[in-house]
């Protein structure tokens, strides 16, 4: 038997992974959710056919979307996570005893339900008493929270076509700005620049964030199963510059064991290639 999962990275480029078996397939109110078992990448989650995570490389994404802001401001205690139904981001956040409250806003109950059942390696901290899960639209949730309610907002979204569309808009970033304290940080999944369609999404997101926040940077990571393997995150803040405000000593003293992130890489990941820098400049000058 020869079963392959294939994702079209562009109309002309495909990535395929041999699948051992399909563990789940459900159509929720919002999207189609599939979970596969593979020999090379372990378990894999796809939404509407697009790969969200694999057991083998999810750590890169989840470490980079959490430890960068946490090492920049270790005093963060109130966190809002949008999306992230697989639980990986919350798993990393729960390793910090200093975090007192995590609101996780996921639109699709089914993603969380299936993740709990089939992806225990990411969903393992969803029952932590500090974690409060809200099943609703992220844009709606942020609009309604009190001003300055959070120290950190993490936008762990899908691509900006379909369910995640509202999380790449100017009104969303503006609502996040309002929901953040004066020391607030916004980190978001920021697409990539290698392929045209993702490049456009990335530029639009950057110009919108830049119009709201005084500090708006991007940083990179290498995620083998994402299109082009080179992926970006956005770091926006009202106060902190992650390059100069890094609290390396404090973070290292926590003794967190990580597979990708470290405080030297923290500096390095903001050193971005020229093609990304050019795209950011284009977006800023538009």
């Amino acid at each position: 038997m020869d079963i392959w999962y294939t994702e079209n990275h562009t109309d002309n480029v495909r990535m395929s992974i041999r699948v051992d078996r399909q563990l789940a397939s459900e159509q929720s109110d919002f999207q189609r959710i599939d979970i596969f078992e593979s020999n090379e990448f372990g378990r894999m989650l796809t939404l509407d056919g697009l790969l969200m995570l694999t057991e083998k490389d999810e750590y890169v994404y989840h470490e980079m979307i959490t430890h960068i802001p946490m090492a920049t401001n270790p005093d963060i205690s109130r966190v809002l996570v949008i999306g992230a139904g697989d639980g990986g981001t919350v798993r990393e956040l729960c390793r910090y005893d200093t975090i007192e409250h995590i609101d996780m806003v996921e639109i699709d109950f089914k993603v969380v339900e299936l993740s709990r059942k089939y992806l225990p390696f990411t969903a393992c901290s969803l029952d932590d008493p500090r974690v409060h899960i809200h099943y609703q639209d992220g844009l709606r949730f942020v609009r309604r929270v009190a001003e300055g309610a959070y120290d950190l907002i993490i936008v762990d979204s899908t691509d900006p076509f379909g369910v995640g569309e509202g999380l790449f808009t100017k009104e969303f970033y503006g609502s996040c700005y309002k929901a953040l304290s004066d020391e607030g940080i916004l980190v978001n999944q920021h697409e990539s620049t290698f392929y045209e369609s993702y490049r456009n999404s990335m530029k639009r997101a950057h110009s919108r964030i830049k119009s709201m926040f005084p500090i708006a940077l991007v940083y990179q990571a290498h995620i083998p199963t994402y299109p082009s393997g080179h992926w970006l995150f956005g770091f926006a803040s009202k106060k902190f510059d992650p390059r100069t405000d890094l609290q390396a000593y404090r973070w290292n003293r926590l003794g967190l064991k990580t597979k990708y992130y470290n405080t030297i890489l923290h500096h390095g990941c903001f050193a971005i290639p020229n093609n990304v820098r050019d795209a950011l400049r284009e977006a800023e000058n538009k």
Partner: protein
Amino acid sequence: MGKILTQQNAPLLEAMQEHKLNRIVRFDVPGHKGGRGNRELAEFLGETCVRMDVNSMKNLDNLCHPVSVIKEAQELAAQAFGAENAFFIVCGATGASQAMILTACKAGEKLIMPRNVHRSAINALVLNGAVPVYVDPDENRELGIPLGMSYEAVEKAVLENPDAKAILVNNPTYYGVCADINGLAELAHSHGMMLLADEAHGTHFYFGEEMPMSAMAAGADMASVSIHKTGGSLTQSAMLLCGKSVNADRVRQIINLTQTTSASYLLMVSLDLARRNLALNGRDMFRKTMQFTDYAREEINQIGGYYAYGEELCNGNSFYAFDKTKLSIHTRNTGLAGIEVYDLLRDEYGIQIEFGDIGNILAIVTAGDRELEIERLISSLAEIKRLYGKDPTGMLSSEYIAPHVELAPQQAFYAVQESVKLRESEGRVCCEFVMCYPPGIPILAPGERITNDIIDYICYAKEKGCSLTGPQDMSIETLCVVK
């Protein structure tokens, strides 16, 4: 013939599908011959669309003289809308309104109507020389919106003009306000007048639950319905509905005075499909629409500054009923004119709404929307208030300016005229229309005396960025007046 058609059928669609399979050789118009003569057009619009852009022929009937599939499609539409006859119109509700008015009255005859009608109604008077008897609509001064006509005001006009031929009613207005159409129909009929309804924004009244009363249900004689607005057909397609009292063969003649002899089959088949969809699924579609608008009203009213109004404004008379599928929002207390919010939504947030006037905006919501878009609209409004809101003192409230009619629209439109500067036009009789578009309700119509209030209003609307249309001088620096 003799087959029994139900609302499940779509006779025109079925005939076009069969036509497609027949692979008829084309030696008729249109000259693009199914797109082969214009590849770029075919690529842009899609193969099916250009292949189905055909002209009337034996098996596809003819809109000017319908005897087979178009006739059947129109009969099904009449049934679905509870009308005696329905006519497919391919030049918008504008065409339907004009045919309706040209049917009801001729040169020199009177038509009772509210002044806040769409320009197409007054256009019809320019065409046929009938004379308007305007009834001032009530207004909500706080919101700066015209309401419907009160029963008493219409009754007064009827008693003063017993020779009038018909009463025209907006059902609803652009903002979603309905007059007591049932009461007005009885009033008209008891005085031997026809009741005509401009239902450009009322398609859904025929299919949804908890809706204001539709014109046909109220006993109106004719109604012009813009199916493309909320009924799901293609832009520019509409229907003219007629009740029992109307001679449909005469109406067909009148429609043929101005309507094209090459009616687009794309438009007509979209009417056939929209009718079937409305008949079969309309109730669910409009329930979903109302869930969206009820939710949006509640959320928008929590933002503060905005007022998304609803049924609470009903007064049993000139605001007899509210169309809850309309998302009309008063913006002035955010310190922003409706048109400014409209521009910000478009330019900063990538959201296109239907219109913004001096104090209000209107978003069209249908079952074609998704929760995602509703959330975006609400959040964008919240952000616009946070980032751009200011002190509202000193803002002009749009108010209804009662017209001074000096000449019938046709007389003024064809009078010997001269062009004068807008600021110097006070006291002159205007020969042309001036309106913000949308909503397309004239500030000035041909035959009306220009006052200082009107000049001030036009200047303020220009300053706030309203798109003003109508006059020959497209920059509205000058107006044509009677010499």
